[in-house]
């Protein structure tokens, strides 16, 4: 199993290939389009994170001792970033999730999307992922 750090390094490497913002954004948009992120049954109001402008849904499940996340958004760029976050955080131990950070988002030139003042729900989503990790960690003990 790859660690969160390894996955993040891999993503940084992928993004290093892009020459300008257009290529980076096109890649994110494509990621956003491709991924079937969440099952409809979990796309409920309970699972919604209100970001004012774009909505984010998150669902978590414990498989053995790892958490599997699925998520979605109504805006495609937000969805692209979700795809990247899910790739790093999903199928990891709660402890690893709690210890991980998201500074790699700065390195791939997407910093502005994780600004706390950006109304896209992503900051709250990361908080939510960590909350799930705390909850499942307690459950595992």
């Amino acid at each position, binding site marked *: 199993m790859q660690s969160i750090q390894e996955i993040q390094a891999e993503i940084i490497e992928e993004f290093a290939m892009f020459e300008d913002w257009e290529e980076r954004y096109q890649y994110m*948009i494509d990621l956003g389009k491709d991924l079937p992120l969440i099952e409809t049954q979990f796309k409920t109001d309970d699972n919604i994170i209100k970001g*004012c*402008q774009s909505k984010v849904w998150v669902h978590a499940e414990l498989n053995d001792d790892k958490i599997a996340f699925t998520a979605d958004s109504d805006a495609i760029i937000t969805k692209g970033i979700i795809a990247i976050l899910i790739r790093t955080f999903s199928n990891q131990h709660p402890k690893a999730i709690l210890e991980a950070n998201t500074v790699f988002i700065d390195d791939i030139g997407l910093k502005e999307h994780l600004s706390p003042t950006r109304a896209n729900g992503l900051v709250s989503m990361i908080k939510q992922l960590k909350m799930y990790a705390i909850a499942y960690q307690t459950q595992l003990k």
Partner: protein
Amino acid sequence: MLDSNKIRADFPILSRKVNGKPLVYFDNAATSQTPQQVIDVIVDYYSNYNANIHRGVHTLSQEATDKYENARNTIQTHFNAKHAYEIILTSGTTESINLVAHGFASILDKGDEIIVSALEHHSNIVPWQILCEKTGAILKVIPMNLEGELEMDSYSELLSDKTKLVFVNHISNALGTINPIESIIEQAHKVGAAVLIDGAQACPHVKPDVQALDVDFYVTSAHKVCGPTGIGMLYGKEEWLTKLPPYQGGGEMIDEVSFEKTTYAGLPHKFEAGTPNICGGIAFGAALDYMNAIGFDTIAEYENELLAYGTKRLLEIEGLKIYGTSKNKTSVISFNLKGIHPYDVGTLLDKMGIAVRTGHHCAQPIMTFYNIPGTVRASFAFYNTKEEIDALVEGVKKSKMMLS
């Protein structure tokens, strides 16, 4: 004729770059940019005569007081109020509205009615909801049609002798619709109701004459008319301002104070508790002077040209839909691309140096009406150009290509 090159030179911010591209600023309905003439006034205030007003014997205080009261006179003249003391300087439209709503709490009885329009900004809805909860008054809403215009027949039907207050924006911030406020005011007065008009979106485009309108209250913010943020005004007819109780207690607003009884100062000080935004008030006056020097007819003519051009060019894009299609509208274009979230379009445009607003524009009921999550809103000011509109059109085309 408006010389846009000459005007653009007045705005230092317009020559900056954003994300490596020349800034195209199309978020004027949210806040307007500030010309050097107004910036100079702000610098001059802090460099030469910063002092508290209305209470000092010294020269600086006297100078600051004179300039502040001069600004009030400029505002009075601009809106053609009968008296300078009918102009209350507030922190902006929102505070002005809350001041009136607070005052009406002591006037309304259970079962009285307040009418607002479906085109309102949130700040226009919430204070009335609070007021209704406090007093037992009932909130009624004038519906809108698909063009984004108010249904005036429904308005006439809503009016009755129970109506105590009508509250409508002069121009809608989300769609740019110019509402028929003359008729709204006239009909309200026939049933004895007072009218408060939110002019936040109107003042950048037109010069309202409060006496000709015979409006009871008119409110606006300086930052929409090339002035600074955090300052605005409430115009109220003398008889109404006398009737309303003070909004906040504090210095400046009192006449005599003892622990048994306080008598309030006269207008406008009764509503201006505490040290005001002195520099902001002076700069507000300077901003109106700046716009008047260009002339509101010249501004309107030029902006209408931008609106016609922008509408025509944007509609060339397949799948683009404009919300708010009234013939009476200002230079605001609210739109969506079919199947694409406005947030995505706004994000990509920002990457190209183009500033637009996306979202519900603090007017969720309008978005619910159209059943959309929001729109992309491009709002033009007199310092924008057709070349910038061309850049927007190219930007939207490119966003569409990337997103679909």
